[in-house]
């Protein structure tokens, strides 16, 4: 057994241990903290699986923004926990456990018994990389071969925004999402919120830019930009924009909108919907991604901010 395998086994064990702790611990807040740690370690698993693109996404989302989202909710729901909630009885718990184990076993069996004749699209993806001029295969799949999924996924993000906003009280519609954060303007948080964003923005743009040829991409970069924005909001340096702002709305649809326009351009003048002419493929894809990183950063930030709560000042 090599050192790498031992490391992998230890990693898997720690991840599962954290998973069990997250499920079993009494306090919701602890469970949330456990889940954040879990998310970060899962990112390591992705590195071991040689899927660095996913590792970046998982770290940014599972451990990062998802963690912030859950922690914020857990803090706001602390009082709810005190109320008695119906805990399922022993029979329910045992049968739930038995069935979960059954499903997990079946899955494990199914994965381990997959036929040896490996089915993969990796060679096909590599063979068609000429069509885009980008060398990161994952970006090629996301932006060219399965571009429809990516476009629809951006619509999902937009619908999530509509869904979250729809939970606003009628009186607050059009106003600012989330509470207004106050912090000591000379405090550490404000200091960090002034110091970090320039660095963070550079890193975010770098990760996005390098995504054409190396692991990275619009989503991972957008997540970093979103976190910088959130930091400034939490430090009270800036406020969330009012949801009726036309400019905000425009940014939120810029990514999927440009995607759609380029796609329709392919339908009208090119080979097919979402087909890029090989000569223009790289600039077109980068253009869409630039619009997308703006949209993603704003969307993620607003999803974390929540529903509009304060009506905008007239």
């Amino acid at each position, binding site marked *: 057994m090599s050192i790498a395998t031992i490391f992998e086994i230890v990693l898997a064990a720690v991840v599962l241990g954290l998973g069990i702790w997250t499920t079993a611990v009494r306090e919701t807040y602890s469970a949330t903290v456990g889940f954040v740690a879990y998310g970060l370690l899962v990112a390591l698993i992705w590195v071991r699986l040689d899927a660095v693109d996913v590792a970046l996404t998982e770290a940014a989302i599972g451990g990062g923004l998802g963690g912030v989202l859950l922690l914020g909710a857990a803090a706001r729901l602390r009082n709810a926990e005190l109320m008695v909630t119906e805990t399922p009885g022993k029979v329910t718990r045992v049968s739930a456990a038995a069935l979960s184990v059954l499903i997990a076993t079946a899955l494990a069996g199914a994965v381990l018994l997959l036929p040896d004749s490996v089915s993969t699209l990796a060679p096909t993806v590599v063979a068609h990389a000429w069509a885009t001029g980008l060398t990161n295969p994952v970006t090629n799949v996301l932006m060219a071969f399965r571009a429809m999924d990516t476009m629809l996924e951006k619509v999902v993000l937009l619908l999530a925004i509509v869904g979250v906003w729809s939970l606003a009280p009628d009186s607050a519609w059009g106003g600012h999402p989330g509470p207004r954060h106050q912090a000591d303007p000379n405090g550490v948080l404000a200091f960090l919120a002034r110091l970090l964003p320039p660095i963070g923005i550079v890193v975010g743009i770098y990760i996005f830019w390098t995504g054409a040829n190396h692991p990275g991409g619009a989503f991972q970069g957008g997540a970093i930009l979103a976190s910088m924005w959130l930091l400034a909001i939490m430090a009270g340096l800036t406020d969330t924009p009012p949801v009726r702002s036309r400019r905000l709305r425009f940014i939120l649809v810029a990514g999927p909108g440009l995607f759609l326009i380029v*796609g329709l351009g392919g339908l009208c003048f090119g080979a*097919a919907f*979402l087909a890029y002419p090989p000569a223009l493929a790289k600039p077109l894809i980068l253009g869409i991604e630039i619009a997308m990183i703006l949209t993603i950063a704003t969307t993620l930030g607003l999803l974390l901010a929540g529903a509009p709560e304060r009506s905008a000042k007239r």
Partner: protein
Amino acid sequence: MLAPSPTLDATTTTGGFLLVLSIVVPVAGILLAFVLGDRYVRLVAFAVIPIGSAIAVAILAALPQGNGPLVYLLGDWPPPLGIALRADGLSAAMLAAAAAVICAVAVFAAADFSPATTETRAPFVFWILLLAIWGALNTIFLGGDLFTLYVALELLTFAAVPLVSLEGRAETLRAAMRYLLFALLGSVLYLLGTALLYGLHGTLDIVLLSRRVSLEPAALVAAALMTTGLLAKTALFPLHLWLPPAHAGAPSAASAILSGLVVKGSFFIVVRLWFNVMPGLPGFAAAQLIAALGGAAIVFGSVVALRQERLKLLIAYSTLAQIGYLFLMFPLAFGASGRLESGDALAGGLLQAVSHATAKAAMFLAAGSIYATLGQDRIPGLGGAGRMVPISVLAFALSGLALMGLPPGGAYLAKELLLQAAAEQGQWWWAVLLQAGGIFTGAYVLLVLTYAMAPADRQTTLGRAAPRMGEMAALALALCSLLLGLMPWGAYLSIPHGDASDKFDLATISKALAPLLGGTVVAILLGRWEPPLGYPSRWTALLVAVGPVRRAALALSALVERGDKVLRWWPTACICLLSLAALFAASMRVAF
């Protein structure tokens, strides 16, 4: 159904661009409406809906001209690398149904969700989500790739959940929460199946998979997980915990969409999975199991529906029963050998889905008008509705007749096809359930109509007058459902000729009378409420005469309702879900 011809799968056919447009147009509408906001939201929706409907009609027209499904390769990348959109007869029928329902609902909702000069919450959310549901459904009907279908399913869920809680009351928020969590559980199980299928065959394209899938343990696990996940999203008994509160709590226009269309999305993917992706896999036992759940849903949903006091809850539980009805076609289409045998049964099932989509949406719209006018929707308090909102009550009655399976409704034709298949294959037990479904539907429709036609016990109207356009939209949709049996389905679904409903002989009439008469009996036995004022005393005498039987029946139905409470408890429903996954895997194993 048109047989997919292998040579045509990997190239874009003429007219294929229509498939792209039918997805892109609603999506463009969403983006545009979101940016413009204010009072333009409804305008954008009203501009998009005619265009989208025209595209659906164009697809209907284009399909019979080619000899095979319409295909479009997105980005010009053939599967397995790229994603294909395909439209066969099933897709075309569902596309048309979705367009019809969306149009009617939009007309109905035009007044309820009219935007003010400054942007308000409900209209903004409603119109965007209406377009989103349409786009998601079209993607589901056309998607040729299992992962694209997953994204579309999530799109559908994300559009449907906020509609449930649009009114923002605590109970609707709770209903939306349960819906969201259970739907997410369902889609995760579906995604698990996709992971396994990709691991097995290196593709998620439906046509390619159908050539590669074989009987392997991993494929069985995948099929079982995907099926149960989709059933959870379809709310097939006993996985219906989220449906009644969600569909009853939403605004009426949204209820019509949720009940008529949204549950059909996941149902359609089950059909694709069983008939297109892995026709050899499920086999006899699994088909019997899925239809048994459907049968249970019919009995259970109908009995609980008859006990509801609120009209919208009654219709929601009736949806539960009708969903069960859709699954009766599986064993009839697969036959005893476990192979796809009867295309007629499949056609019947899809026709049932189309006619339910239109009829149930009409029913919810009619109920919405009644609710708005009377200010409440308690069934014993419906008296006078027949005079105050005659068109809506008529629409309710017509859609009820269509659901019961009366000629010339689509449901009638569907039922005939299924009964025929049941007779041919000797699976008489499903024929019994098919008839029972019609009778139960008759019971609750008659029950509601009895109260609605009764004179009012008070003169004042509490609500506002229902807009005439909305009432007409409901009526048009109900008529559409009732006339579905006369449409030329032959080009899209395999329906044998000469089976059309132009023969009104004695047998047809007796078939029509069965649900009505049976329904009356059931309504008398299981209807909970006192007969409305002003009814002939004979009615009361009849009730006294059947007193003991009725009491026993009511006690039984009370027991069923209590069972429903247990099944709608979160842990029970989840345990049912996982048990079903295990059962499906086991029954598919039995088959080979």
